[in-house]
């Protein structure tokens, strides 16, 4: 028998069909009430034919999607019957099998990296959303604790105005300036400190100490010092981003190898020439590391700071008052915006990093 599946994939396939078979048997008495789910069960059980004839990976993907749609379309108002949980299992197994086979195909060079490589995390994310939706609705999780994604999506669509205003207040006004100032200050201080071994010996332990400190704790202090508006939020972001940048840059400025430095010495190069032509470029990967860390820290810092007093706009404000007003789906919509903005911010920095430190082995992918 030609083996187009690894053992692990085979187990997944068996779980999927097994759930299908069991689910079909259990849903026989109520066949008419949820015809879609019953069809899904039947098809899943049918997929056992893969034991004798290979089935395409795309078929598994289609089954996962069909299962998800069937489930969501026929979610009952009350508690979900047990065999629906089997359908959820089966759909998850199909999705997992699908991504397993896709990545195997990419590894073997049968599918292109670009495109398919993006599809896999997307499938995973969608699977998470489906499980979330089905579990919250199927298990009657109180919506004031965890609303289903569909409700969050509806809020997201309905409140674009508010969400946008909050985004502008928090992200554009607080995060971006704070991030820029904090990172720049960290960079400049690192360079200044680097010139003097004495200062370096004095500042670095303190810098390390400070970067371990729960900086969010200073949010109430910053609000006290810089007022309610975005300035205090930006100040928190500055404080949160400063130390990672300082510590990383100082490490990075030492990253140039002894031989690379010796080369500069043989040219009798000046301090600034060595800095600009050797040490800063060599520090690039470290600086970007800090920029990436900071991109996630900055948003969190700004949102946290808004818990300690704000004008009546902003993501943190909306989240805290939303909880108070039990507008939990709005809170989650806001969280979704934060996650998307944060991920996009991170992604942009990562892209820039690829462009700027193209020469680094971690970017160009090994060899030499």
């Amino acid at each position: 028998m030609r083996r187009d599946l690894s053992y692990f994939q085979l187990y997944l396939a068996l779980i999927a069909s097994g759930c299908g078979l069991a689910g079909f048997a259990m849903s026989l008495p109520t066949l008419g009430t949820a015809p879609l789910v019953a069809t899904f069960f039947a098809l899943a059980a049918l997929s056992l034919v893969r034991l004798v004839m290979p089935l395409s990976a795309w078929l598994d993907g289609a089954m996962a999607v069909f299962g998800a749609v069937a489930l969501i379309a026929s979610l009952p108002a009350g508690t979900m019957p047990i065999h629906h949980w089997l359908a959820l299992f089966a759909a998850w197994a199909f999705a997992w099998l699908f991504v397993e086979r896709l990545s195997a195909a990419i590894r073997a060079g049968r599918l292109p990296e670009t495109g398919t490589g993006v599809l896999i995390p997307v499938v995973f994310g969608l699977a998470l959303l489906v499980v979330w939706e089905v579990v919250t609705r199927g298990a009657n999780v109180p919506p004031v604790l965890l609303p289903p994604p569909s409700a969050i999506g509806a809020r997201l669509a309905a409140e674009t105005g508010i969400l946008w205003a909050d985004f502008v207040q928090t992200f554009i006004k607080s995060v971006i300036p704070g991030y820029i100032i904090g990172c720049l200050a960290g960079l400049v201080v690192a360079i200044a400190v680097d010139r003097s071994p004495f200062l370096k010996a004095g500042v670095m332990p303190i810098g390390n100490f400070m970067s371990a400190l729960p900086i969010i704790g200073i949010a109430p202090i910053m609000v006290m010092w810089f007022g309610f508006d975005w300035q205090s939020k930006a100040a928190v972001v500055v404080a949160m981003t400063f130390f990672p940048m300082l510590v990383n840059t100082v490490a990075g400025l030492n990253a140039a190898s002894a031989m690379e430095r010796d080369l500069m010495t043989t040219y009798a190069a000046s301090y600034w020439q060595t800095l600009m032509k050797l040490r800063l470029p060599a520090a690039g990967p470290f600086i970007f590391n800090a920029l990436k860390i900071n991109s996630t820290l900055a948003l969190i810092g700004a949102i946290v700071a808004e818990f300690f007093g704000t004008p009546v706009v902003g993501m943190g404000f909306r989240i805290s008052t939303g909880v108070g007003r039990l507008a939990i789906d709005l809170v989650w919509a806001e969280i979704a915006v934060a996650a998307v903005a944060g991920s996009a911010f991170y992604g942009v920095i990562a892209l820039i990093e690829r462009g700027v430190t193209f020469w680094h082995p971690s970017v160009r992918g090994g060899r030499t």
Partner: protein
Amino acid sequence: MNRVFPVLTVLLAIVLFWYVMAVHMNAPWQNQLNGRAGLENVPFTEFAQQTWSQDKPVLPAPHQVVGEIWNATVALELTSRRSLAYHAWITLSATLLGFALGTGLGVGLAVAIIHNDASDRSLMPWIIASQTIPILAVAPMVVVGLGAVGLTGLVPKSLISMYLSFFPVVVGMVKGLRSPENIQLDLMRTYDANPWQVFWKLRWPASMPFLFASMKVGIAISLIGAVVAELSNASGGGLGVRLLTGSYNGQTIQIWAALFIAAGLAAVLVAVVGSAERVVNRRMGARA
């Protein structure tokens, strides 16, 4: 000596600057007070003294913070709920449990990621995205949700702490477990070693430096997680709660004291991981 002197110098500079700023920032309020009390032309030295001894200063002077730390730790019984040591212990226990869980989760995910292509591709982007979620916003819901199923006190805090601390561990361990060079892996292949052997004899020991580097970041973040969780879970106390109640009552000195204790705790924890690292390094024959 050579290492301590520069640190002391910089510390001294910071403390001096701090005292100056304390005068500057507390002056407006002091002027108001003096004005109301009808005091005029207070000599500067006395005025500085006044700004350094306000009850609820905008910026407490260093000695006020130190005094509060002293009063709230040494001067009190350890079990007293006013003792910062007591609150530090509460935060510490959540931190340690969260750190242990986070490290376990991080290592587990890293193992899955390096052994399985599909996990690598599907998990990594979401792991990054998970860290962009404002945890403080989710924390109350986690606390309430877990409270509804009967989990209160330590567990919700630790879970939030875990949520923050697993991230550096996954990232570091994925790097670390992949750090063996091809030649070292090939060697294992020439012995026809099984994946289990490759893991325990090669990948795991090779990843130790990465594990410890991540754990140093992780434990500091764990502490942040515990403090954040306490902001959403006032019962039971903890440094986060002290921060919060300090902030409601305008007790700036109390805020700063809690903050410093937290920082000290973080430093101690990082140092402990550091010495564990040294012990392991020595066991693994690292250069002195």
